[in-house]
């Protein structure tokens, strides 16, 4: 029975990952991460994702704060977006990375309205990738648990 359950979960996982690639939520860099995970580092992807989420949320909070200032400090903004762009790129969060590029552009133009719009996109893309990755990690854990019971 477990065989079927495991197979079904693996199909779900494969479909979820494929849809994330198809939608551009993830890019090939995510594959690179998975390739670095092995039996000696079985939680590598999960750990990287956790670090990423903590970092991203910290940055999003800061960005929000700076954007709500009367006089927006665009260079501080840019510095934070640069960080988020870097870590998005490192885990393969493609659309989130693009949203960061847009905010950097708006920030360079010192356009507060555009920045606000670009920031909303960042927030949206972050929550999309975070929730899908959370589902993915849950599936992974479930599969590992069942496989360990074999």
């Amino acid at each position: 029975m477990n065989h079927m359950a495991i197979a079904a979960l693996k199909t779900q996982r494969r479909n979820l990952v494929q849809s994330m690639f198809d939608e551009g939520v993830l890019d090939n860099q995510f594959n690179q991460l998975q390739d670095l995970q092995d039996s000696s580092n079985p939680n590598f992807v999960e750990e990287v994702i956790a670090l990423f989420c903590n970092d991203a949320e910290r940055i999003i909070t800061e960005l929000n704060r700076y954007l709500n200032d009367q006089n927006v400090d665009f260079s501080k903004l840019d510095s934070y977006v640069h960080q988020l762009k870097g870590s998005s790129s490192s885990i393969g969060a493609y659309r989130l990375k693009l949203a960061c590029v847009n905010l950097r552009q708006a920030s360079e133009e010192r356009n507060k309205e555009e920045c606000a719009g670009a920031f909303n996109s960042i927030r949206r893309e972050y929550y999309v990738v975070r929730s899908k990755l959370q589902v993915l990690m849950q599936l992974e854990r479930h599969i590992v648990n069942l496989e360990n019971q074999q």
Partner: protein
Amino acid sequence: MAVDKTQFHVLAVDDSLIDRKLIERLLKTSSFQVTVVDSGSKALEFLGLNYEDDDHNDNEHEQRDSNSDEDEDHQDLGVNLIITDYCMPGMTGYDLLKRIKESSCFRDIPVVIMSSENIPSRINRCLEDGAEEFLLKPVQLSDVNKLRPHLMKARSNSKDFDSH
């Protein structure tokens, strides 16, 4: 001290927590011994280079002979390659590169720069000023595999005391 002559020690420098984790895993997967630090100043500290007073240029020639044994020690027991991010607060990767290349003790350690930004003038400047390679982020396993020849060459060069 018994040293595995085939294992190389890489010092990785990056201010990003995620990128530090990634580069560490990439390097370990490629069988390198790894030390990771989060800034250029910590890198210099790790090397034992006090970055405030490395103006040894005047004494360079006198120190060279007495340092030659230490150089070999640094190659065998210390750091064989430094891989650093370019964009870091305080000391950039380029600043670190310059410090290393200006140091009589450490100038022979190959330095590799990583950057998320593909800026040709930046790349050229780093390569002209002594960087062995310039890698675009995100760094891949295939990039890390390109490092080994630089390490092999540096190791064989360090056997020549008077090559410089």
